């Protein structure tokens, strides 16, 4: 039996006390254990940022890549070895600034990744510049006049890109966050989970106190139909005093990318023996150019 302790790394987190990343870290470990995945069956891929250090603090296969390139690297890992459950954990800057295109292409590709965004709505590691999800009007060192851009709406964008699993959770509810990740781990294609992650150092606005009274769970409404895309869009646009969390949308009717690739039908590439071409294969190649 896999337990949370199997994921214990000798490295201690360097996050600030109270940082929302602790909850995400714990939730990831719990969810993996609950899903019965052992550390060697998992690959955590991240980018660069405060949250992206998560794989360093977790005993599992991992790869801390480049700022913004989490998803394409993870895609390569997954296609090379789809027996690895590949989970991305990266920040909102990583995912929605440098990485926005990659995420949306991953969604339409429906590659089998669980993509967890540590959305603190700020740049943490570079010390507090506003981020793509910062509220319009956010004052920061790079926006002393208050930012002019509409924040990115990751839920709506993922839906528009054709994602088959779109969810939101938050660091203040470990239980629900864990459940959401478990559910995503059970999804066959690309699964986005945007996680509200309070940054206690640089984002005083979007604090635990900000979210707690506002969030409510979509799944508390038994009539909410997660396969209804228009309903999901409507919920995606909801913002203000009430902010929905939970699974906005999930359909299982589209196969994952890796399920469709002919050359992967025989199993993961990485696990097949690598051998020289057979003489008849060579012959066929030569005949093509004769």
């Amino acid at each position, binding site marked *: 039996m896999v337990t949370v302790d199997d994921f214990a790394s000798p490295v201690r987190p360097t996050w600030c006390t109270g940082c929302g990343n602790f909850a995400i870290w714990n939730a990831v470990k719990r969810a993996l254990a609950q899903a019965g995945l052992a550390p060697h069956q998992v690959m955590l891929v991240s980018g660069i940022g405060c949250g992206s250090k998560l794989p360093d603090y*977790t005993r599992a296969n991992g790869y801390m890549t480049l700022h913004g390139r989490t998803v*394409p*690297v993870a895609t*390569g890992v997954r296609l*090379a070895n789809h027996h690895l459950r590949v989970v991305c954990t990266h920040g909102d800057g990583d995912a929605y600034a440098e990485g926005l295109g990659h995420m949306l292409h991953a969604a339409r590709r429906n590659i089998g990744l669980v993509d967890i965004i540590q959305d603190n709505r700020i740049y943490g590691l570079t010390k507090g510049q506003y981020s793509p999800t910062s509220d319009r009007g956010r004052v920061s060192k790079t926006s002393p006049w208050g930012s002019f851009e509409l924040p990115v709406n990751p839920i709506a964008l993922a839906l528009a890109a054709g994602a088959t699993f779109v969810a939101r959770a938050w660091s203040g509810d470990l239980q629900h966050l864990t459940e959401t990740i478990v559910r995503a781990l059970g999804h066959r294609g690309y699964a986005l989970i945007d996680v509200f992650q309070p940054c206690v150092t640089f984002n005083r606005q979007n604090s635990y106190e900000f979210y707690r009274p506002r969030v409510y769970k979509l799944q508390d409404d038994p009539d909410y139909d997660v396969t209804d895309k228009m309903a999901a869009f409507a919920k995606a646009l909801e913002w203000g005093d009430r902010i929905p969390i939970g699974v906005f949308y999930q359909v299982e009717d589209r196969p994952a990318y890796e399920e469709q690739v002919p050359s992967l039908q025989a199993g993961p590439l990485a696990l097949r023996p690598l051998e020289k071409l057979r003489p008849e294969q060579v012959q066929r190649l030569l005949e093509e150019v004769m």
Partner: protein
Amino acid sequence: MQSQLNDLSIRIGGEAGMGLESSGVGFSQALVRGGLHVFGLPDYHSRIRGGHNFFTVRIARRPLYSHTEPVHLLLALDQETVRRHIGALVPGGAVVYDEKDGLPDIPRRSDVHYFSIPLSKLAEESGGNAIMRNTLVFAVAAGLIGFDPTYIESVARDNFARKGQAVVDSNLRVIAAGVEASRPFQADFPFRMEAAPGAPRRLLLNGNQAFAMGALAGGCRFVSGYPMTPGSPVLEWMAGHAEEYGVVTLQVEDEIAALCMAIGAGYAGVRAMTPTSGGGFSLMVEALGLAGMTEVPVVVYEAQRPGPSTSLATRTEQGDLLFVLHASQGEFPRIILAPGTVEQAFEVGWRAFNLAERYQTPVIVLSDHYLATSIRDVAPEDLDFDAVVIDRGEWLTEAELDNLEGDYKRHQFTESGVSPRAIPGHPKAVHASSSDEHDEYGHIEENAENRRRMHEKRMRKLETARAEMRLPAAYGLNDADLTLIAWGSTYGPLREAVDRLNEQGLRAQMLHFTDIWPVPHGTEALLTGETIAVEGNYSGQFADLLRMATGHTVSRRILKWDGRPISPEYITNHVLRFTNHRKSET
């Protein structure tokens, strides 16, 4: 009186969309089946229709390595072709033009023949479609040079079989009509190149194809890419063979993703690459450093075209050498290979993956438009599949991992710099690496001493690898006075230039580098006497690199930066100018 020539070039010209290149390749195939040797060179614009395109096939009775400048027979599918290329014809040469097009309003040359043939009309009548006149005009050419048209027919049969017998038949009728149409002019055309029946079958392919085959043979099983001329045919070739050979190929959103995905696949244990050109490579620069830092084997195939920026998308240059050598922030080991021929492209194809895995670092293969797209015939054994070795370097087997004592150290300090590698998936080898500086386990570590040692460990791999880098291939006289230095695609033109210079008594040799970086041990000792670097760029980048790495200053540089390939004549003319100049000085 016709004379049997040993070397003859036929050029077809017209607009994009007329299918010049594909019919040129088909004709070349026929020539090769007829026992002749060919070198085929396309020249086309970065546009889908219109513009002036041409394709030149050089034919000989001995193996060819290069195109040359003189043309013996010009097949003009429009007036523009006559206008542009009439000057390239040798005395006695001929132009075949379509009666309906007529000739452009330029002075006639008295020393060449003008053969007017109703190409469109005949194609229409015999094949049912005027656009088949490119097939027809090559049949005319066969007739003129006395080449047995049955070889052309055999190629047409093979190439059109999947389109049905009707298509095959109409092609055969067109070919017959072409040969027939050539009869009245045969006596006037002085050059002959008859088939040499019974020769063993040979392959006909370009550098892109050869590299792709080599890569496949070398175990490449993952190719991610974004289309870019002239690199994309490698992605396309791999896609075409993916299902049969168990390769995953995918076209992705951009080149950043392309290399990142290949790195992800490489990390997970699959031989992976991405093909591109300079512009795409520019976008891969950050990820290249990621591979260097995290010691992930990956291959980038960079088929150069002229720069800077978009420039001339369908033309050639060797302008990216120093760029790929230094690309990405900071310092890390990388290996650069630049094949010069189809055979070398094949070999580099599999060697690149061995080197990438042996040194756990990125390998860049520098090709260019000239090598990538020009076709040459080689013997089947020249693509030496038997010689292929798959060497994964220091790779911990399942059994070794089962018996591993203690924790696995992905970035273990070793004397060679290479750390034994385990791919993610084994319970005893759970590990995470990081683009941040890290300790032996891969954990983020800022300590100065660790940094110093880890950086040295990585850089040490370059010295370890240097020992197996190959010295340049020498061609020509051993005790030459004149050493021409070549790298990559200019092998052919230089080789031929050396022959010609030696014929003129200049005592020349060529040193051709395929292994560019790390610069092989012993290079310095080879650079003696008068050295001339020949390069397809503005500044002489390889000469600069040699000076930087060895201290040797080349005597002269022969350069070209107009986007067109370097010909043997270009080289010999420049060399002779230097040497005459020197003579007149003394």
